[in-house]
């Protein structure tokens, strides 16, 4: 197997997707971690595709990672989201840890041991704004210590390491943040909130009181503000959108199968859902174009820190997130209208309940209202590029 080509990456992702699909219903019903799918990701070495080749990874670019997210999203959205969130954390290390001894050695460990990375950016009392922290990391000599009331750590109990934000020292302003890597043996988690939700149940995004101690060199030397602006926010919107595209694409495929089955039974008559299927196809194409344009924009900007931190880029990524999170709901709703009671019912080949419930998380993971508020502020000074190709 040639691990470095796009085709073989898609094949490996498809093998993981088959495993994820087999357990997707059970993961959803029980609200349990998609262990089988993550084991399959490890077996296919998907957890390290973004890591540089010289550190044992494959140096996959954002588009290749997004393609894997979308393939997984078509079978089990929770497993796909776990993969996406892991890759978003990996992007912080790849973009900001390559020149740092501890972090580059850690990336080699991720590849060797197929470690799963989780994120702890939310905190009780900050109202969902991840660019603020209350907790502060304490550095004493070459050791650091952190306690955080993390109201959400997705798959925290199943992760091998957690990348966690805090203020940079006890007197720092709430926006003066750093991000630190703690490995599983360096922290304890005391569960404070249970993730019993409408959808995305398998991400097991419980809340925890996090207590960690580690060597101080595990603090990423770049301010978190830069990490967020240059890799985390963009990769989040891109990879989430790729997962969401996967959910909508699978809903579309089910609706199309439903229409085709009806058409085959009654040749010469156009089935009633066919027109709506055409509408859904149009929406899916818009969604896909939006995601692909975002991926291209990131790829073009990624070498240029100024462009990545520009308002124009932030507006583009915000718009991608708003557009994809809203469009998938319309597409899945169309699919539901097409499949009717067979889509509404669980356990049929056309079931769409899980799709619809999972998709409802999209508008909320970083609230669309917050993102629109941010964009509206930026548009007070940033002038929208009105050229078609520019």
């Amino acid at each position, binding site marked *: 197997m040639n691990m470095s080509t796009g085709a073989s990456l898609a094949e490996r992702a498809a093998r993981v997707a088959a495993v994820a699909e087999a357990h997707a219903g059970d993961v959803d019903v029980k609200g349990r971690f998609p262990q089988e799918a993550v084991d399959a990701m490890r077996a296919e070495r998907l957890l390290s595709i973004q890591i540089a080749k010289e550190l044992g990874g494959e140096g996959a670019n954002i588009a290749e990672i997004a393609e894997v997210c979308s393939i997984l999203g078509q079978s089990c959205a929770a497993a796909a989201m776990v993969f996406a969130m892991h890759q978003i954390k990996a992007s912080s290390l790849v973009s900001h840890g390559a020149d740092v001894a501890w972090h580059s050695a850690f990336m080699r460990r991720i590849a060797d041991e197929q470690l799963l990375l989780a994120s702890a950016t939310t905190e009780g009392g900050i109202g969902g704004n991840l660019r603020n922290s209350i907790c502060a990391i304490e550095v004493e000599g070459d050791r650091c210590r952190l306690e955080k009331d993390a109201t959400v750590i997705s798959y925290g109990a199943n992760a091998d390491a957690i990348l966690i934000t805090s203020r*940079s020292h006890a007197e*720092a302003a*709430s*926006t*003066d943040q750093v991000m630190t890597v703690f490995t599983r043996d360096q922290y304890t988690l005391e569960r404070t909130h249970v993730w019993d939700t409408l959808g995305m149940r398998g991400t097991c995004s419980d809340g925890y009181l996090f207590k960690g101690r580690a060597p101080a060199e595990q603090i990423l030397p770049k301010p978190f503000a830069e990490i967020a602006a240059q890799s985390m926010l963009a990769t989040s919107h891109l990879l989430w959108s790729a997962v969401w595209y996967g959910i909508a694409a699978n809903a579309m495929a089910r609706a199309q199968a439903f229409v085709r089955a009806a058409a085959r039974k009654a040749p010469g008559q156009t089935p009633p859902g066919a027109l709506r299927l055409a509408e859904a196809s149009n929406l899916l194409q818009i969604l896909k174009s939006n995601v692909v344009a975002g991926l291209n924009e990131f790829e073009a900007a990624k070498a240029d820190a100024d462009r990545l931190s520009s*308002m124009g880029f932030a507006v583009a990524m915000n718009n991608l997130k708003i557009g994809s999170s809203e469009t998938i709901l319309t597409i899945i709703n169309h699919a539901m209208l097409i499949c009717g009671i067979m889509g509404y019912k669980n356990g049929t080949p056309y079931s769409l309940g899980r799709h619809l419930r999972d998709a409802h998380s999209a508008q909320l993971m970083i609230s669309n209202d917050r993102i629109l508020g941010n964009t509206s*502020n*930026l548009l*007070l*000074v940033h002038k929208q590029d009105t050229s078609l190709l520019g």
Partner: protein
Amino acid sequence: MKQKIRELLAKHGGLPVAVDQIVDDQDLYAAGLSSFASVQIMLAIEEAFDLEFPDNLLNRKSFQSIAAITRTVESLTGNAEAAE
């Protein structure tokens, strides 16, 4: 010009520390400048100096410190010597 920028920062920056405690090349984001407040300062500067920031200057670096803001404004007004 720098004095005017400091005045605008004090009025619209929403910083947790007094602006006269901040030295020219200190990182304003680390000092607590939010993305919302940075836009309010840009608007106030546009109004005060009667200029418009082109999109290529609307990035983090242009507004990272009082010195950076001064350079950004100077690049648009062309009066580098008057600033000192």
